[in-house]
C-alpha cells in the first residue's frame, strides 16, 4: 500500500524494498531466527511468537476435541448404547463442547491469525500491550490444564451450557473445577479482546484511517468489543454456579426460590454474542481471501465493515431465542425473535457482497479460495437454518433437537473452522516463509466439503423428525441417517488431519515463499516472510485504501502452477 503496486511476486532471495530497489541477498533475521532457546519463546512478548504458541496449543486442543467428537459419532452409529456407558457418553459430549467452544472456536481465529496479523496489517510493531498478550496466553494455558485436570479427575457431565440446577446441585461430576477453568479461560479472551481494541484505536500507522483498514481488522475490532462487553457476565455467572456448588451460597436453587431461568439469561447474554465472537473474525478472513483471489476490492467495503459492527451490536439483543420454550415470557420471546430476524440481514448482506466481489474478478481457485468458497456454501446453509430456529412457532418443535446441532455446526465448523483453515493456508507463507503443497491442499478442502455435508446434513432431517440432542440412545428407525453422519465424520476427520500433516511437512520441504506469493494487497504482504521482529524496517506510511488492486489486476503465472 505504501509501496508502488507490485505486479509480480518477488523472488524469495531478492526481496524488493518499499522503494522497489533490490538489495543484495543477505541473510536477514526474522522473528523466528531473532533469538534461540526455549526462554526466547516462553517469555516472548512478540505477537508473532505468541500467535505461534497459540497455534500449537490450539492444534493440540483440536485433536483432543476431535477425539471426543469421534467417540460421540462412533457411539451414535448404533441406536443402542453399546460403546460407552451413559455417564461417560455425557461426559464426552460435554468435553467435546467445552474444548471446541472455549479452546478452539473462540480463540482460533483471533488468537492465532489475529494476533499474528492485526499489528502487521495496521503497520504497528506489536499489539498495544505485549506483556498482557503473553499473559493472556498463559492464562489460556492454565484454563486448558484445569479443564484437562477436570477431565482426568472424572470429567464433567453438564453439557457445555452448565444449566442450573443440574450443574449447581444435582450433577455428580467435576463441575466446580470445570467452571473455574472456563472462568479463567474467559480472562484470556478478555485480555486478547482488550488488546485488539486498544491496538486498533491507538497503534495504526500514519495514514491508516478507519476506512483503509482491512476488513479482517474491522472484524477483529468488533469481536474485541463483544468480548469486553459479554465475557465478564458469563464469568460472574460461572462464579455463582461454583459458589453454589462449593459453599451453598447460591442464587439459582429453586428450593428456596431461585430461578433457573435467570441462569439461562445470564449465560446466553454471553454465549449468544460468543457465537459472533467465533464467526466475525472468520468473516474477516473470508473478506481477505476473496479479495486476494479475485484481485478485487471487496464489493461494498464500508457496508461489509459496518455490517460487522451491526452484527456485534444487534447480536447482543437476541439471546432469548435460546429460551423460547424455557419459561421466558411470551412478550420477551417476541422481542428476541424479531431482533433475531434482524441480525440475519447483515449476515446476508455480507454473503451477497462476497459473491459480488468475485464478479469480473480474476478468480484463482487456490486452496485458500477453495476454503472460502466452501465457507460461502456452508455458512449460507448455516445462516438460513438459523432463521428456522429464530422463529418462535417453529422453534417450539426444533429446540434442543439435532436440527440445532446441525445448524450450529454449519455455522461454527462450516463457517469458522473452514475460514480458519483457509486463513491458515493463505498466511502460512507469511508466518513461516514456506508454501504448503497446493494440490493436496485442494484435495483436503474438497474432502472437507463432502465430509462435512455428509456429517451434518442428515442431522437436519433427524432434527425435524424430533431426535433430541445429547441423546445416548435413540429410536432404531433413525439409525441409517446416523450411520451416514458417522461415516461423513470419518471423512471430515481425515480432511482435517491432512493439513495437520502436510503443513508441518512444508516447514522443511515447502517451496520458499517470497514476501508476497499471492501478489496480494495489504501491509502484511510488504513485510518479509517471515516478518522481522518489529514487522517493518521503518513504520510504513499508508496512502491507499485497502485492496487497492489496479484495473486489470491479474494473478501471476507462477501462482497458477499446480
Amino acid at each position: 500500500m505504501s509501496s508502488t503496486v507490485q505486479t509480480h511476486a518477488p523472488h524469495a532471495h531478492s526481496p524488493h524494498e518499499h522503494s522497489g530497489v533490490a538489495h543484495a541477498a543477505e541473510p536477514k533475521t526474522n522473528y523466528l531466527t531473532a533469538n534461540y532457546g526455549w526462554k526466547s519463546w516462553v517469555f516472548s512478548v512478540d505477537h508473532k511468537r505468541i500467535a505461534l504458541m497459540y497455534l500449537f496449543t490450539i492444534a493440540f486442543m483440536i485433536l483432543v476435541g476431535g477425539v471426543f467428537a469421534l467417540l460421540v459419532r462412533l457411539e451414535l452409529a448404533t441406536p443402542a448404547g453399546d460403546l460407552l456407558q451413559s455417564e461417560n457418553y455425557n461426559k464426552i459430549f460435554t468435553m467435546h463442547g467445552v474444548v471446541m467452544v472455549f479452546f478452539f472456536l473462540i480463540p482460533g481465529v483471533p488468537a492465532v491469525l489475529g494476533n499474528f496479523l492485526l499489528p502487521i496489517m495496521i503497520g504497528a510493531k506489536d499489539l498495544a500491550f505485549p506483556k498482557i498478550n503473553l499473559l493472556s496466553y498463559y492464562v489460556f494455558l492454565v484454563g486448558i490444564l484445569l479443564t484437562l485436570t477436570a477431565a482426568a479427575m472424572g470429567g464433567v457431565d453438564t453439557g457445555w451450557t452448565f444449566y442450573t440446577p443440574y450443574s449447581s446441585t444435582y450433577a455428580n461430576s467435576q463441575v466446580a473445577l470445570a467452571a473455574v477453568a472456563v472462568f479463567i479461560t474467559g480472562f484470556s479472551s478478555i485480555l486478547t479482546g482488550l488488546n485488539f481494541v486498544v491496538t486498533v484505536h491507538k497503534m495504526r500507522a500514519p495514514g491508516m484511517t478507519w476506512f483503509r483498514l482491512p476488513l479482517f481488522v474491522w472484524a477483529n475490532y468488533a469481536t474485541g468489543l463483544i468480548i469486553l462487553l459479554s465475557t465478564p457476565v458469563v464469568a460472574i455467572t460461572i462464579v455463582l454456579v461454583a459458589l453454589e456448588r462449593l459453599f451453598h451460597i447460591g442464587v439459582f436453587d429453586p428450593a428456596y426460590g431461585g430461578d433457573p431461568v435467570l441462569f439461562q439469561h445470564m449465560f446466553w447474554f454471553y454465549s449468544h454474542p460468543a457465537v459472533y465472537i467465533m464467526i466475525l473474525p472468520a468473516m474477516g478472513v473470508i473478506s481477505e481471501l476473496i479479495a486476494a483471489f479475485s484481485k478485487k476490492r471487496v464489493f461494498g467495503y464500508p457496508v461489509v465493515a459496518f455490517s460487522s459492527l451491526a452484527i456485534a451490536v444487534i447480536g447482543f439483543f437476541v439471546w432469548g431465542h435460546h429460551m423460547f420454550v424455557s419459561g421466558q415470557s411470551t412478550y420477551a420471546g417476541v422481542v428476541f425473535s424479531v431482533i433475531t430476524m434482524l441480525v440475519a440481514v447483515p449476515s446476508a448482506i455480507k454473503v451477497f457482497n462476497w459473491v459480488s466481489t468475485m464478479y469480473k474478478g480474476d478468480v484463482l481457485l487456490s486452496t485458500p479460495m477453495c476454503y472460502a468458497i466452501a465457507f460461502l456454501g456452508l455458512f449460507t446453509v448455516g445462516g438460513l437454518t438459523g432463521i428456522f430456529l429464530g422463529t418462535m412457532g417453529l422453534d417450539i418443535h426444533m429446540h434442543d433437537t439435532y436440527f440445532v446441532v446441525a445448524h450450529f455446526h454449519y455455522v461454527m465448523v462450516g463457517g469458522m473452522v473452514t475460514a480458519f483453515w483457509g486463513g491458515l493456508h493463505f498466511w502460512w507463507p507469511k508466518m513461516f516463509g514456506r508454501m504448503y503443497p497446493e494440490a493436496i491442499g485442494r484435495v483436503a478442502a474438497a474432502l472437507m466439503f463432502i465430509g462435512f455435508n455428509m456429517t451434518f446434513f442428515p442431522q437436519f432431517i433427524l432434527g425435524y423428525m424430533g431426535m433430541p440432542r445429547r441423546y445416548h440412545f435413540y429410536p432404531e428407525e433413525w439409525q441409517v441417517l446416523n450411520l451416514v453422519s458417522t461415516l461423513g465424520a470419518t471423512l471430515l476427520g481425515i480432511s482435517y488431519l491432512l493439513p495437520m500433516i502436510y503443513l508441518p511437512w512444508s516447514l522443511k520441504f515447502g517451496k520458499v515463499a517470497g514476501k508476497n506469493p499471492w501478489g496480494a494487497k495489504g501491509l502484511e504482504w510488504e513485510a518479509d516472510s517471515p516478518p522481522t521482529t518489529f514487522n517493518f524496517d521503518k513504520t510504513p506510511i499508508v496512502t491507499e485504501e485497502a485492496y487497492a488492486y489496479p484495473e486489470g489486476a491479474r494473478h501471476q503465472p507462477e501462482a497458477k502452477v499446480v
Partner: protein
Amino acid sequence: MSSVDATGLAHHFEDLEQQRESATLGMWAFLITEIMFFGGLFGAYVVYRTMYPEAWDNGSRELDVFLGAVNTTVLIGSSLTMALAVRCAAKGNNKQVAGFTLLTMVLGFVFLGVKVIEYKAKYDHHLIPGPGFMYGGHAGGHEQIFFALYFTMTGMHAFHMIIGAGLMIWVILRALKNSYTPQNHTHVEMIGLYWHFVDIVWIFLFPLLYLLGRHGHAIGAATGGHH
C-alpha cells in the same frame, strides 16, 4: 524484546503520549469488563428484588447500617487519598506518592476490618446461606437469596480491594525508588482508576444492600426482622 528506554517508552510505541493514551484507553476497556462483571450480580439483585420484595426488605434490615455508612465514608476517604497520590505522581513528588498510597492502603484495610466484623455478626445470627441458614426462626426462606447475593457482592468487592492493596505495595516500592516523573507515572494513574472504580461499586452497594427497605423504621435501628 519489550525494551523500555530511559524515559519509560516501550519499544513498540512512537512516543510517550501514544503510550499514555493507550494505557488509559486500555484501563477503561478493562473497567468496562469490571462494570459488566459486577453488572451480572446487580442484574440478579434486581430480578430477585422484584420477585421477593418482602424478603429483600427483611434482609436489608439485618445489616448494620451504621457500620455500612462508616465504611462508605472510609472508602470515599481512601478514594480522595488515592486521587491525591495520582496528583503527586503527576508532579513527580515521589515521597508524597508513597505517603498517600500508604494512607489509601490503610483506609482500605480499615474497610476490610469493619467488613470482617459485619461478616462475623451474620455468622452469629445464622445468616450464612447453606444448610444452617435461619431467618426469623425458619430455614429456607427467600431471605437466603438476599444473603447469598450480599455475600457474593460484598465478597467480590472485598476481593477487588485486596488486589488493589497488593498493587499499591508495588506503587509504594517504586515511589520510594523515585520512579515516577510527570511524563511517566502511568502505573499510579491506572491503579487510581481501578481504586475509584471499586469505590463506585460500593457507592451502589451501600444503598442497595443496606438502605432500601428501611423506610418506616426508626433511624439507626440495626435489626428489624431478627428474632
